[in-house]
């Protein structure tokens, strides 16, 4: 019995070490916010330019669509102001709460325990507290109800394309923007951004809006003129009488290749401003048909050729065009061909000081690919000659609006 005592003592002593708490995500300061539509209570999607939190200069959720999100509450104080920067207006949520502290362990230090969330102030149409306890990750704490607003529309940018087999289509493409400025506010939006679609405010105090698009690389902005009807109606009692914009028209889109409304399932253009603001309008760019794709290759053995990387100091073509790829490390390039001639000479100036040329000859055919795009030139029967490169091979002798590899330069 006595030996058993010692044995058990030593055995249990070996298991007497307490496990330490996990030090990850100790604070429960994340408040979950979800957006809902007044009337139906359905999940709502809200576009924000950013979310600002009182007590920090950081901007969260830049240029994002939100249905639900988690935001950190400031445990330095017992309240946090949350500002949602939206296209139509900025909205504020001021939350109060209790902050407790607790020492966790020697490894983890202290943690902050937040509780009893209270709504102190808000500028939204309606806000409901679902749960007063924030968590370590986003849960459902607060529901923000929004009266429908029709002062924001979504415009998508699309590139018209024609495949090698002649199939006409379009694809969503990101564009580089300096800014987009509505005439009624003169506040530039989407500054220095790259995006495939934008949320833009409309003037609800008037029946028309002009949007000035300043694209990167262009000196003058392109202007889009829109007009619409204003309808005053009380759709939801909680929201009172509101202005809804409908019967929109494109008054002037001459600065763009093509602009059109999105159509519904029945093929009817959507001219009523939607809420949530789904894509209502699309700006198309005519296909670029004169880009030839050139890949740089290296012959590593008599039977093996691999992709190569070259450093180009300068690259130019034999007709007025933008200087391409200055001081760049390249594996492939897209070269514009002269639509007014049957040949184009391309000059490569490498970092080694060498200058090499390649001459491309082709057949031009003028045709109308898209009604709005005027007559465009199709390039076929591409041939390449060069006295400077070891070998030049044409892998695809027709150009399409979707750049492919047409020529392989082998060194």
């Amino acid at each position, binding site marked *: *019995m*006595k030996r058993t*005592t010692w044995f*058990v*003592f030593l055995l*249990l*002593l070996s298991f*007497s070490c*307490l496990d330490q*708490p996990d030090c990850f995500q100790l604070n429960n300061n994340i408040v979950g916010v979800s957006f809902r539509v007044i009337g139906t209570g359905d999940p709502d999607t809200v576009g924000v330019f950013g979310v600002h939190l009182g*007590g*920090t200069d*950081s901007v969260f959720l830049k240029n994002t669509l939100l249905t639900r999100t988690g935001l*950190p509450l*400031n*445990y*330095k104080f017992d309240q946090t102001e949350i500002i949602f920067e939206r296209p139509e207006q900025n909205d504020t949520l001021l939350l109060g709460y*209790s*902050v*407790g*502290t*607790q*020492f*966790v*362990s*020697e490894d983890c*230090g*202290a943690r902050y*325990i937040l509780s009893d969330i209270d709504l102190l102030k808000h500028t939204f149409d309606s806000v409901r507290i679902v749960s007063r306890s924030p968590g370590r990750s986003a849960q459902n704490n607060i529901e923000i109800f929004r009266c429908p607003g029709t002062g924001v529309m979504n415009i998508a940018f699309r590139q018209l394309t024609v495949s090698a087999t002649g199939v006409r289509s379009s694809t969503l493409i990101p564009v580089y923007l300096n800014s987009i400025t509505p005439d009624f506010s003169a506040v530039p939006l989407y500054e220095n951004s790259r995006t495939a679609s934008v949320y833009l405010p409309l003037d609800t105090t008037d029946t028309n809006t002009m949007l000035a698009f300043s694209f990167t690389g262009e000196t003058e902005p392109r202007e889009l003129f829109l007009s619409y009807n204003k309808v005053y109606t009380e759709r939801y009692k909680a929201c009172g009488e509101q202005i809804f914009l409908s019967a929109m028209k494109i008054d002037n889109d001459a600065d763009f290749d093509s602009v059109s409304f999105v159509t519904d399932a029945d093929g009817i253009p959507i001219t009523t401003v939607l809420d949530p603001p789904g894509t209502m309008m699309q700006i198309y760019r005519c296909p670029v048909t004169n880009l030839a794709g050139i890949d740089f290759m290296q012959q590593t053995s008599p039977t093996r050729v691999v992709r190569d990387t070259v450093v180009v100091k300068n690259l130019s073509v034999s007709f007025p065009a933008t200087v391409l790829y200055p001081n760049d490390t390249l594996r492939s390039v897209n070269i514009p061909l002269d639509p007014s001639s049957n040949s184009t000479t391309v000059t490569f100036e490498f970092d080694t000081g060498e200058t090499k040329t390649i001459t491309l000859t082709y057949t031009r055919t003028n045709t109308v690919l898209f009604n709005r795009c005027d007559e465009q030139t199709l390039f076929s029967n591409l041939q390449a000659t060069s006295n400077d490169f070891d070998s030049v091979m044409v892998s695809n002798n027709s150009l399409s609006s979707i750049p492919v590899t047409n020529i392989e330069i082998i060194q």
Partner: protein
Amino acid sequence: MKLFNNIALAFFFYTGVWAQQSPVADTTDLQNKYLPTGIRFGVDVLTLARNRYDKSFTGWEVNADVDLSRYYLAVDYGYWARTFDREQEHYDNDGSYFRAGIDVNFLTKDAEKNMFFIGGRYGRSVFSEKLDITTEDPLWGLITRSSANNHIQGRWFELTTGIRVRMWKIIWMGYTARFKFGLKTNETGDLLPHDVPGFGRTDKETTWGFNYQIFVRFPVRRQPTTQSAATP
């Protein structure tokens, strides 16, 4: 909770089994059966040893029990103090506690009164703690905060098991394993307790404890003997 249910079931099972297996005495001196035969006083060696290997801890614990037939009234009293000094936080905690309860001995036939027991305790603690924070938060900047709890109370329950073995004359040794649960504290400020003296860390709803004790037993009276029934 599942573990608690298992231990509770085991407690009631063994109590019933042992009760059924106890031999019926022909005659028993019922009058003296439940009078104490001795009182044990002891000290928890592990708590004293902890002062050595845990630099953040200071404390001690003393124990006592008295037998009432196979039932033992047990009392523990102790003092704990913890100090953690980190670059960003400083934490102090100190207080006293007691536990009181009953153990049931399942080695009723052991001539030396060695015992294997299962029992329960009710624990209470009075303690004070303080937390000072100075830290640079990556999002919120510099945070300085000082919070304290003064003379707050805690209570909890325990299920215990262990053995007591007579080593030499009046010297006894034994261990007690404790399953602690049901902790409640009465703090009102913004500092949540980290450690409750006698119970341990508060980040779990249940926790285990272990004591290894050395006792001195003082006899009170002689062990009662049984007399055979007269044959009619």
